[in-house]
């Protein structure tokens, strides 16, 4: 079961984990990314490529489901403007085995950061600045290859 959503609204972690628990598995892992207030950041804004975003999130879910034998996999990514402390992204994985659920969750968030067409702008008050891709994110994304 794969569920992917790109939305402006906040998400409901309880509802999303419950939906995957309903499959009767043993282990559910989640990852939530939250806007950090580093270096004076007050808000962020996320732009995306409608259509391609959903397709790329579906692709990485399908890869994870196959590789770790997941019974369910959910990615919800918000777009638009979010303040410090607001959630940006939720990844949920379900599997009979805990290591599979946790590893797949790490894979999904790592790959999302290199494969999914989102672009983040940081606001410091009224001043906006595009975020540069981190080399560490690229390396982490590639570390799952082969």
């Amino acid at each position: 079961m794969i569920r992917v959503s790109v939305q402006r609204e906040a998400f409901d972690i309880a509802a999303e984990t419950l939906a995957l628990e309903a499959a009767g598995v043993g282990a559910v892992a989640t990852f939530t990314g939250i806007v950090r207030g580093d270096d004076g950041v007050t808000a962020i804004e996320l732009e995306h490529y409608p259509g391609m975003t959903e397709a790329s999130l579906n692709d990485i879910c399908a890869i994870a489901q196959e590789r770790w034998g997941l019974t369910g996999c959910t990615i919800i990514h918000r777009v638009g403007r979010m303040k410090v402390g607001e959630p940006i992204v939720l990844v949920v994985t379900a599997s009979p085995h805990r290591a599979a659920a946790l590893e797949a969750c790490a894979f999904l968030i790592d790959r999302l950061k290199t494969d999914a067409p989102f672009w983040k702008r940081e606001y410091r008050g009224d001043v906006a600045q595009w975020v540069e891709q981190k080399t560490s994110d690229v390396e982490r994304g590639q570390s799952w290859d082969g």
Partner: protein
Amino acid sequence: MKLVYFARVREAMGSDGEEMEFPASVLTVGDAIDWLAAQSPRHAEAFADRSKLRFALDQRMVKFDAPVTGATEFAIFPPVTGG
């Protein structure tokens, strides 16, 4: 071909896309960027730093050496920064 621009590329171009017919000499993504950069000073500046450009053909990520022929939508954007 339908060109679409995102994020910093969109801002540099002052537009989220345009229709463009490439000449027959344009075979790959790399060729297309070379050709586009020669169309106007604005294109030249937006596509100046190749290391900061990424591409999708019909919504699939591709590299410089991918053939553009036959594609309907060609997206040009900076490295992605979601999550």
